[in-house]
Every structure is written in structure tokens, then in C-alpha cells.
């Protein structure tokens, strides 16, 4: 039987995991990487690159490269106006319709871009199963995670992406819930758990009760447009102002800045200060360098972290719990590595949050566990999730009449009676909305439905019962019956921010036409990925505040110069089309840093034995 995997389709990185009755594992690529950067790039010949190769192309061909596509899923052009100018690609679309992303001549929708990422994960998993000697390595179905606060359009867009990637999407589950499933599996303890999930682009808070294997979500809240990307943008804006960069004409330079500020952001989670280093800024002779302390960084991002706290309080209110009744707080998402985030979560819940699970991997693991439950039908564990937003219809005067309230356990259903206003009227228009506001115009439009086939009767006589069903994926379906005649009505859906079934079908056919696997190109990419890994590791060591101390006391004279030369040599060769060249240089850097790697290992062990934390080590280095 073909495999069912769990996929975390993230804003910044995506992962695939698999559980087969046993312990779930995250599947790595050929060079041992579990994270696939959620970046897609197209070259002039129409070849599609996904992951780290696409990440590299962000610096050389930014306008043909898409990152953070998740922020566009199920959204309209009016939602993304504010941030659009910092993206290297062009964005277009009709107001109230699907966004189109321009990559050179090709125009793609967010589900199509996401499908490239999913297809790469599918390939990665299949290669893994084949390596393991599996007779049937095919991956035909998946459980895919989404932010808990994703609305119907965003969930549907994710499901469409799965279909376009040739995956049957068995279930859409919420990221914090998936994380809790992985966490609960690990701890096997009952109680109330708060999952704080701050990722690259989205923020979720979910409050769950774990009781004898049942994971019941009590309330969820969040912001689908809040995450590490917003922090990066603040830093990019700061540096761009220093350099006088214009994002409209200098997309590649903006991406070089973005890469540098992300590096500094990561460093600041470990050290008290960091440098933003940008080499090769156009129109500038010397490289750009700016020192940033953790205190400066924290005052810069405080408003962003602050925006996560109100949703937490609202979720607690909806769960009818006080912060002190939460037994455990669990951190999920890369942005929860930031010390300020940890402190704020600790302050809010009055307890140290759990950090012992890898915040990048925990969601994919939970998705794999859920996939295993679906396939095996085993009943030790059960997820009971909720719908994050109220569902309603527009009534007279533009007021919303709520039919299913937020935080209702799903599956959930509701119904509403309709009638006609004119004699022999055979159709009724229904406008469906999601959100908490009173006026229809303040909520998210999910779609307009036309109810047809009402038997001709005098006005007001038909009694049409429209039934709204939210399934276990959090996705809505609608059915209708005229009660006097028992005749079922057909419903025509015009999704507000989604694709129609016909559009998905057409895209599916197009994607087959474009699919072409270039083995040679793939091998080159793998070699580059390996080179990137060692370059990253070496640069990270060289950047350590205590590196001068280490070099002086542990390395031989001239060793650093040798390492730097090998590093520069490899970086120089990265663009080469001949993969042998890169392989040779990679081996050279590997050799040059072998002694350094041993030294660093001993240094870390000694620091740990002496009971010093990384911060102490860093402080001493200055």
C-alpha cells in the first residue's frame, strides 16, 4: 500500500514526516537536511527550482523567485498591498479574487506555487522509502497542516495545492494541534496545554485539554499575518534606509540585505550582539556592516511580540480558563527561539514554556501521527479540533446572522430557513461570511451561493432549509432542501478568494505538461546544498564573539587564514556548472576545517562541563 505522510507546509520551511505505527520520523533529503526552504524559482528555460537552490537564486534572480507564498494563500490583492513592495516578484489580481504572482512571463496562483513545494516533499519522501529498500515507495496521500486561524478560503487553497501536487489530502489539521499531538505523545501526561506557535508568517494560540488520549481543543485564536517575516521586514527597512535602496528596482540587493538581517536575527537569539553584514551592495565600494545589540533588537520587535498577547488572552477567555489554570505552555515555530518571545510567554502564563521539542519539526511529526491514525484506524488517540471563526450569512441591511459560532468543535453543522420574496421565484442568493464582526462588510467573504431549483410557489411559501456543514478539515459545504416538496436544490458556488474546480483541473493538466525531471540538474543542486551546509557551519563558527579567543588558544598559527582561503574558494565556485569543481572545493574546506571542528567540539563540551551557558561563553568572548 502506498504511503501516507504528514506535511508541514510552512511559510519559511516545509517538512515531511512519516509514522508507521512506531515512532514518527522527519524525512531528510540526500544531504541530511530536514528543512526544505519554502522557496520556488523559475529560470528562463522554464525549469522549476524548489528549496535551497531557489534560495540561492533569490540573490541572483530575485524577480523569478517566490518565498513566503503561504502569506498569499486564500488572500486577495487588497490584503497584501502593504507588504507587496518588499517582495521581489510582481503581484496582481482582481479585487476580491485570487492573487497572481508573476515570475517572468509565467503567472501562477499561490496554490500552484505551493504545489511545487509539496511535489518536492513527495519526491523527497519517495526517494527516502526507495533508499530504505521499500517495495512500494509511492506517496499518494498526505495530511497537511495549516495555521489554526486559517479561514475557509486559506484551507481550501491548501487542499487545492495538494491536489495540484498529485497528493490526495486526507486531512487538513491545525499546526498547534499537530504540535500538541507530538508533545502529548512525548509526555503522556493529562492536563491543559497552551500551544504558542509563532512561525515565519502566522501566529496561533491554541488551548487544549488532554485527557486519556483525547486532545480536545478548547479555544483557538491568532493572526494569519504575523510572524518572523514581519520582524525581517522591520530590519530590512532599517538597513534599506541606511543604504538608500529602492525595492522596486534593486530587488536582488534587497534580498542580500534580507539574508543578512535574518542571519543577525538568528545570532541575536544566541548572543547579546550581532552584526548585519552585506557584501557587494551595488553602488558601494566597501561592504555594509552595522552592529545591533539584543536590547536594540528587542525594542524594535516589541510591538510585533506584543501583538501576540491579546489573541492569547482572548483564547483563554473563550476557553473559560485563567492563565494559572494552564498546566503547560509549549512553544512551536522558529520565531519562538527569540528570547523576548520566551520571556513574554513565560510572563503571560506564569510558567517556563517547554522548549525541549524541536520547534521546527514538531508540527510535521504531529501531522505524521495523524496520518497514521487515519490509515490504521487505531483509537488510542483522538484529536477534537474547533473552527477558529464564526460562520454566518448576510441578512437584510448587511447584518451577519451567525450560524456556527467560533470555537465550536468540528465537525459542526447548522441550518437556516430561507423563503422567497416574489411569486414563483426559483432562486435565492446567499452570501456566506466568516468572522466575528456584526456587519457583513467587516467580515471575510467566503463565497456567494445561488440556490436554484426552488419549485414555483407564491412568495413566502417555500421553506428552504440550508444546511451548513463544517467537516473535520474545517472546510465548509452547503446543501439545501425545500421542506414542503422535499426537493433538493442545487448550489452553485463562487468562492471569493479561491479557485473553482474547473480551474484546478486545468492547472493540473498544465502542470503535467511542464513537468520534466532533469537528473543532471538535480545532482548539481545536491552538491551545491552540501557545499552550502559546510559554508554555513564554517561562517557561523567564524562569527562567534569568542572566536578570537578560541583561535589564539587552540588553533595553530596560520590555520584561520587557510580556512578563510578554502571558504572563499568554495564560495567562488558555487556558480560553477560542473559539479565536480564544487565537490573538490567542498572536500578542501572540509579538510581545512577538520581540526577546527574537533576544537569546537571540545570547547563546547568543556563549557558545558564548567556549567557555563552559551551566554556566558559569549560574554567572555568580548
Amino acid at each position, binding site marked *: 500500500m502506498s504511503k501516507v505522510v504528514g506535511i508541514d507546509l510552512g511559510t519559511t520551511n516545509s517538512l515531511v514526516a512519516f509514522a508507521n505505527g512506531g515512532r514518527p520520523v522527519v524525512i531528510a533529503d540526500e544531504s541530511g537536511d530536514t528543512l526544505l526552504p519554502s522557496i520556488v524559482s523559475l529560470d528562463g528555460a522554464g525549469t522549476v527550482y524548489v528549496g535551497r537552490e531557489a534560495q540561492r537564486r533569490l540573490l541572483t534572480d530575485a524577480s523569478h523567485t517566490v518565498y513566503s507564498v503561504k502569506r498569499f494563500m486564500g488572500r486577495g490583492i487588497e490584503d497584501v498591498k502593504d507588504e507587496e513592495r518588499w517582495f521581489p516578484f510582481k503581484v496582481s489580481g482582481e479585487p476580491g479574487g485570487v492573487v497572481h504572482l508573476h515570475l517572468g512571463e509565467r503567472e501562477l496562483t499561490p496554490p500552484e506555487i505551493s504545489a511545487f513545494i509539496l511535489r518536492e516533499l513527495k519526491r523527497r519522501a519517495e526517494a527516502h522509502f526507495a533508499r530504505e529498500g521499500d517495495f512500494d515507495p509511492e506517496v499518494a496521500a498526505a495530511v497537511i497542516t495549516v495555521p489554526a486561524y486559517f479561514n475557509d478560503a486559506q484551507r481550501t487553497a491548501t487542499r487545492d495545492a495538494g491536489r495540484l501536487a498529485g497528493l490526495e489530502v486526507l486531512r487538513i489539521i491545525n499546526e498547534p494541534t499537530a504540535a500538541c499531538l507530538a508533545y502529548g505523545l512525548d509526555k503522556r501526561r493529562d492536563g491543559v496545554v497552551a500551544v504558542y506557535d509563532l512561525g515565519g508568517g502566522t501566529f496561533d494560540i491554541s488551548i487544549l485539554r488532554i485527557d486519556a488520549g483525547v486532545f480536545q481543543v478548547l479555544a483557538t485564536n491568532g493572526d494569519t499575518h504575523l510572524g518572523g517575516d514581519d520582524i525581517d521586514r522591520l530590519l530590512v527597512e532599517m538597513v534599506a534606509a541606511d543604504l538608500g535602496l529602492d525595492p522596486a528596482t534593486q530587488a536582488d540587493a534587497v534580498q542580500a540585505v534580507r539574508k543578512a538581517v535574518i542571519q543577525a536575527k538568528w545570532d541575536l537569539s544566541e548572543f547579546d550582539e550581532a552584526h548585519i553584514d552585506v557584501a557587494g551592495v551595488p553602488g558601494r565600494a566597501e561592504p555594509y556592516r552595522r552592529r545591533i545589540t539584543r536590547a536594540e533588537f528587542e525594542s524594535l520587535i516589541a510591538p510585533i511580540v506584543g501583538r501576540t498577547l491579546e489573541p492569547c488572552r482572548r483564547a483563554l477567555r473563550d476557553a473559560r480558563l485563567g492563565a494559572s489554570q494552564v498546566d503547560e505552555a509549549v512553544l512551536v515555530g522558529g520565531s519562538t527561539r527569540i528570547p523576548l518571545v520566551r520571556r513574554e510567554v513565560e510572563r503571560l502564563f506564569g510558567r517556563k514554556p517547554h522548549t525541549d521539542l524541536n520547534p521546527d519539526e514538531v508540527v510535521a511529526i504531529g501531522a505524521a501521527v495523524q496520518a497514521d491514525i487515519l*490509515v490504521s484506524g487505531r483509537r488510542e488517540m483522538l*484529536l477534537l479540533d474547533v473552527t477558529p471563526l464564526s460562520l454566518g450569512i448576510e441578512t437584510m441591511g448587511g447584518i451577519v446572522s451567525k450560524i456556527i459560532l467560533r470555537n*465550536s*468543535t468540528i*465537525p459542526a*453543522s447548522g441550518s437556516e430557513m430561507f423563503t422567497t420574496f416574489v411569486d414563483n421565484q426559483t432562486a435565492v442568493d446567499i452570501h456566506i461570511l466568516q468572522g466575528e464582526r456584526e456587519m457583513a462588510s467587516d467580515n471575510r467573504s467566503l463565497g456567494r451561493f445561488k440556490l436554484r431549483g426552488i419549485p414555483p410557489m407564491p412568495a413566502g411559501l417555500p421553506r428552504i432549509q440550508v444546511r451548513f456543514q463544517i*467537516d473535520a478539515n474545517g472546510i465548509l459545504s452547503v446543501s439545501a432542501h425545500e421542506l414542503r416538496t422535499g426537493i433538493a436544490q442545487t448550489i452553485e458556488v463562487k468562492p471569493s478568494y479561491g479557485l473553482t474546480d474547473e480551474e484546478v483541473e486545468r492547472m493540473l493538466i498544465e502542470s503535467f505538461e511542464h513537468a520534466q525531471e532533469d537528473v543532471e540538474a538535480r545532482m548539481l543542486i545536491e552538491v551545491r546544498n552540501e557545499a552550502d551546509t559546510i559554508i554555513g557551519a564554517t561562517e557561523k563558527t567564524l562569527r562567534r564573539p569568542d572566536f578570537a579567543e578560541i583561535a589564539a588558544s587552540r588553533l595553530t598559527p596560520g590555520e584561520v587564514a587557510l580556512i578563510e582561503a578554502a571558504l572563499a574558494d568554495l564560495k567562488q565556485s558555487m556558480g560553477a556548472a560542473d559539479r565536480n569543481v564544487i565537490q573538490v572545493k567542498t572536500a578542501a574546506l572540509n579538510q581545512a576545517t577538520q581540526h577546527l571542528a574537533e576544537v569546537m567540539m571540545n570547547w563546547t563540551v568543556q563549557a558545558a562541563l564548567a556549567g557555563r551557558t552559551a551566554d556566558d561563553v559569549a560574554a567572555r568572548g568580548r
Partner: protein
Amino acid sequence: MQPDTTSAVPIDPCKHCGTGAPVDVHFCPRCDRILTLGRHGDYFTFFGLRRRLRLDLKDLEQRFRALSRLFHPDYFHNATPTERLASLERSSYLNDAFRTLRDPMGRLEYLLKLEGFTPKESRDATTKVPQGLLEEVFELNEQLEAIQDLRAEGASASELALRLHAARQPIEANLARHEEQLDALMAAHDARLEADDTDGRREALTAMRTLLLERTYLMNLLATVRREAGAGEAAAS
């Protein structure tokens, strides 16, 4: 536990084997397959409970989890389309039922509806002033008018707040009295149910319907006062 339904138990056949099954049964007695929801009893019988108004919430929660484990769609992934639909419908119904019964007022409203105690036109219930509250409503309207006049004359915020507080107090006190009375009546209702005293039960339900309507009206009055206070704040800022 004997559900409190009428003596004639309606029969709904199993879609799979055709065996008849009482509507309050979740799985076919013969082939053990999950039954389509079809015609069904009510939220109480679905949980295997009598129509009591005072429920042990811990027990209700346990029943909810146990039933979730029986019909959640996760466990019917590889089943036939009929069973999958049945699982979806049964789970939805379970979730709706739990949400309703868990809340004491939601439970009461539901039971009144079930026993045929809903007013003919629900619109009347919210717009028409209940007899017992006429005096109170006149009083409040006068006070609110006075407050609006004072605001127009530029009275201080603290004086307005004091007036609003005074207007709110009798309503809040009345609301508390209503909840106390409802609580007592719920206990009385359950005692009559145990004693199989049908007339006594209906008497309690009738009294509760009146109280519940008044309570809804009182809550709306409080919302009006809050809006008035909000308007004051908006004008001040």
C-alpha cells in the same frame, strides 16, 4: 439508564443490513455498523440521559469523549461512503448536542423547545415587553432619557457614570433574583421528573419559560445601558 422518551420507540432501518433499530441507538444491533442519523430522538437521549436540567458536567464531558471515540470521522476513513457520512453526521450532532447541554441556560431553552414551550412567534418574545417587567422598563427609559439630556447639557463624566450605575442596579438585582428562581425551579423540575409527576413538571416548565423570557429581556436592557455608557465614552474621547 432508561431514556425518558415516549412509549412507542420509532424504528429506523440500518442502511447496510436492513435491520430495524431504535432511533436512539448509534450502531446497528445486528451488523454493528454505524447508523445514519436519519430521524433521531433528541440531545438528551443521544447522550443516554433523562431530560434533567441539572446535569453532572463531569459525567456529560465523559459521555461526550466516549461517544467521540465511537464516531469520529478519523476512524471511518477506510469505511464505505454511507458509513463515512453517518460518522460525519453523528459527530456533528454530538458536538452540537454537547455545546447545547453543557450550558445550563442553553439546556433549559432546548428542553422548553423540545416540550413545545416555545412562543408561537419568537419575534414577539424579544420585542414585546413581558408583563412583569413593564414598570421596570418605563423606569429605565425615563432614566436613560434624563441621562441623554444631562449629556447634552454637558454634565461631567463622573455624574453620568453615577447615573448609569444607578440605572443599572435594579436591573442587575432583578436578574440575580431571576437566576435564583430559575435554579430552584430546575431542581423542582428534576424532582418531579424522578417522581413521574408529569403535571408538576409542566408547571415548572411553564414558570421557567416566563422567567427565561424576562431574563432575556433584562439582559437586553443591560446591553442598552452598556451602549449608552459606550456612547458617552465615544463622545468624550
